[in-house]
């Protein structure tokens, strides 16, 4: 009953929101409602000029002078998807070693230089990009360009530094492989993206980290870290001419090598039936739950409709999963769904965690919500709220210059058109409930999905049958290469296992 009452009230609110300022007085006593505000206005976004050096390096500058900080964000268009077969973790290890010594500076010299400037360095790799970020107080601009150039162009991959990082990475893997949330995400990816370059562990496995050689790293770097694959965003208390001068001075001599062979196109393998994987961690008091379908590439035209559908199911605000699992039933602390979109594929993942004994109940509720979204159109007020949230939220996504820079880098990485964000409100507002239903049915299917549960299986073994055929794997096997769902993923089991 409670759900109905609340739904009814939400519907009223949605109606009021939909009418916006046209409605002078709301139907109920004004004393009981907050002042009406106009529906969110779309912001107008001006794509900054993209400059290009003669070596192909692209540069954008976003000036803002009220805070004495300069931030450089460099992305190189290569990520964990390019890890060589059998060597997962290569892209992340290469990026991780950039600040650990160059031909001119030791790791400690780099750390001392950046820390002296009050700044910080962060490097790493995602699936489609590697990045190096350098931030400094604005009286150390030259140093920032000098360092980022040195890191990108001349990393030494010195054997002793490499061995140190290898040892640390192996120990760190031991730690995160005991963390239920991390394990759930790694295992999900392995099953959902099986057979593609996105299925392996981006941080590597014990075997691959042990096996990687300096030569592997040097060759990955030489192949992909080239100016024509790199975009640099310069942000903050620095002018555009100054930025371009410094970029030319420090990065102008960077040379392109031979173009690496284009990777084979990634085709996600459609799911047929359900795969349920349980990772058994007997000391867990809570179970991490993931329910996933394949999603879309970032540049897909279905992105807008799917974003609206996801907003209703488990998006970053009020959503059905949160309402049902937390607000109605008190089963969980958080419940959400994410669209993870990469350059050639994507995932639609519902995530939550609950006390061990309620694992099956909570999982079933997630599945029920997925079925509901697939079976019936979303309500008009849900559509309205989702659209207004997405349009209004744009202002928050462009609040700080660093956010602007990161939006621009994303647009360039995924080849989104320059007017993308100006088109976004219109695209989202033109969607109807039938559009959203059609797109949901295209991608979301509770019959063909992957479910991953990480927890103490003895607390919920009895209910597992309801979910389907189950494979139970001890958590200790996750760090090793446990039996693969299919042949062809990057980290094959070591011989003998």
């Amino acid at each position, binding site marked *: 009953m409670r759900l109905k009452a609340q739904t009814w*009230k*939400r519907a009223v*609110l949605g109606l009021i*929101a939909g009418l916006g300022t046209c409605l002078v007085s709301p139907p109920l006593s004004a004393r009981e409602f*907050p*002042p009406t*505000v106009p*529906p*969110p*206005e779309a912001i107008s976004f001006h794509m900054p000029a993209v400059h290009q050096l003669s070596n192909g390096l692209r540069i954008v500058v976003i000036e803002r002078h*009220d*805070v004495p*900080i300069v931030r450089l964000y460099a992305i190189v268009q290569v990520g964990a998807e390019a890890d060589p077969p059998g060597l997962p973790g290569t892209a992340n290890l290469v990026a991780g070693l950039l600040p650990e010594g160059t031909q001119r500076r030791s790791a*400690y010299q780099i*750390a*001392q230089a950046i*820390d*002296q400037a*009050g700044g910080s360095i962060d490097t*790493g790799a*995602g699936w489609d990009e590697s990045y190096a970020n350098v*931030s400094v*107080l*604005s*009286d150390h601009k030259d140093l920032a360009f000098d360092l980022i150039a040195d890191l990108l162009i001349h990393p030494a991959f010195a054997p002793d530094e490499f061995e*140190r990082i290898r040892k*640390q990475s192996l*120990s*760190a893997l031991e*730690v995160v492989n*005991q*963390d*239920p*949330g*991390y394990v759930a995400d790694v295992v999900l990816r392995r099953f959902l993206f099986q057979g593609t370059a996105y299925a392996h562990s981006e*941080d590597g496995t014990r075997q691959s980290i042990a096996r990687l050689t300096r030569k592997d790293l040097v060759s990955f770097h030489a192949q992909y870290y080239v100016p024509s694959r790199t975009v640099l965003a310069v942000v903050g208390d620095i002018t555009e001419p100054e930025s371009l001068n410094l970029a030319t001075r420090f990065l102008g001599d960077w040379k392109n090598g031979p173009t690496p062979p284009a990777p084979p196109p990634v085709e996600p393998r459609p799911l047929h039936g359900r795969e349920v994987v349980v990772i058994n961690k007997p000391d867990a*008091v*809570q179970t991490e739950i993931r329910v996933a379908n394949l999603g879309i590439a970032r540049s897909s035209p279905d992105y807008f409709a799917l974003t609206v559908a996801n907003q209703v199911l488990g998006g970053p*605000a*009020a959503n059905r999963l949160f309402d049902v699992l937390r607000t109605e039933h*008190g089963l*969980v*602390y*958080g419940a959400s769904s994410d669209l993870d979109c990469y350059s050639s594929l994507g995932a639609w993942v519902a995530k939550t*965690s*609950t*006390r061990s004994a309620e694992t099956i109940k909570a999982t079933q509720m997630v599945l029920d919500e997925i079925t509901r979204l697939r079976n019936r159109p979303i309500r008009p007020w849900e559509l309205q*709220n989702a659209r*207004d*949230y*997405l*349009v*209004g*939220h*744009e*202002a*928050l996504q462009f*609040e*700080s210059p660093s*956010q602007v820079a990161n939006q621009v880098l994303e647009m360039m990485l995924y080849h989104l058109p320059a007017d993308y964000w100006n088109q976004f409100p219109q695209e989202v507002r033109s969607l109807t409930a039938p559009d959203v239903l059609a797109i949901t049915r295209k991608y979301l299917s509770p019959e063909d999905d992957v479910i991953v549960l990480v927890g103490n299986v003895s607390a919920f073994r009895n209910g597992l049958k309801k979910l389907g055929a189950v494979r139970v794997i001890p958590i200790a096997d996750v760090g090793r290469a446990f039996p693969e769902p299919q042949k062809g993923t990057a980290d094959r089991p070591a011989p003998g296992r």
Partner: protein
Amino acid sequence: MSPDFKARFLVALGMTRPDGVFRQPLNRGRLHSRFTRIFRGFMGTVALLILFVPGTVFGAVKLPTVKIDTLELPNGLHAVMVKRGEAPVITVEVWYHVGSRDEQPGKTGYAHFLEHLMFDGTTTLGRHFSDYIVRVGGIDNAYTTTDATVYWETMPSSNLPAALWLEADRMRNLDLSQKNLDNEREVVEEERKRRYDNPPYGTVIPTLYEQAYTVSPYRHLPIGSVKDVDQATLEGIKDFYDTYYVPNNATVVIAGDFSVDQAGQLIRKYFGPIPAGTRSVSPPIPVEPPQTSERVVRMTREVALPAFVEAYHIPADGTPDSYPLRLASEILSAGDSGMIYHQLVYEKQVALEAQSSADFSEDPNLFFVFAVMTAGHAPSEGEAAVEQTLKRLKDKPLSPKELQKAKNQILFELAQDRENSKNLAEQLGYDSVVLKDPALVNTEPSRFLSVTAEQVQAAARKYFVRGNMTLLEVHPGQTDQVTANWHTGTH
């Protein structure tokens, strides 16, 4: 390492929050200052006051002065506002000066429990607070610390009137029902599991605080004890709400693109009619007696690698010693050249991660070092390296270059606090409520600038001593066990 890996790694270590709602991350340095009432003296019953001091210059870099508008209503409500016009976005925060330090024995976890219930509806509007924020694209949340409970919304500026209406509404009209209480109790228990019980090293920090304190309410974290949360009654929570959720215990903070005049009018209109509270909002809090001898605690847990934490009592935030200690903390902790990381992770390679952090707060808190050993190395090796490092800090004053580095690190953090409306509102709220001086955002930088190398050395000698330390070693084991070489007298 991948960004996800880094985030999850810290979660596994119990060093940060998975989703940022509950407790301030332990490694986020915040700049605070001494309890002063300077600005209160100037305020009439309803006065709009502008605080102005010249900007602070650090070397070649200038930190511009922030223009702060303040307001006090006859019912005791304070407001602190900073207008900045770069983007059509604002952050509104309401700070209630009540945290886990105000909780009585047997009632731990109440401040945080109530924080959850504040989202469950009012008698006027029902459970729709967040709908009015989300509908325009905004986001809202809250967190509870030892010292304060903070509610915040970041949203398009046009939504300011609604946000202030909503905050005033739940300050007065919260609908506390048994049903909501029972539901949130379950949610809080899930939150506890998620943050503390389930991550591999998640119980380390709660155990540390329990061992480092004997009578101070800092002994327990804001999540409280399972038993107290289990036994919390509607009456008890309602009493807590009636006592602390009153205008004279609240500060409204607004930062971003808005009209200060309009905001002032709205605050008077919506918060003005709420009557001041009649009970004391600052009951006496037990004072922790000085620690006199080293405490050694050993715990076993199902973790992959051994770890250890060393914790030293430090003075309250904003006290004279807190400034040199903050600089000492930067030298020890900041970046890969920080002395602790450099020694344990880089030079000796006994630890795979080592962090240190000064957790400054309203009452004296802890400076601590947390290290996870690399496979094959024992905590004792790390402890020896920490001892050597601290000895270096005590034996010799920092060089001018080292001192400048620490100051640059501080300046960067101060500047960073101004990069968006949320950071700025957090800073203003903390300064106003916990340290009682909203002008600190302008006046505090010079306090850091004036610290000398000798003061840093003296502070290190005073606080980084064995008798002032609690050592907690974590060893892999099948069951959770804690044994200590000392007795608090309270168990």
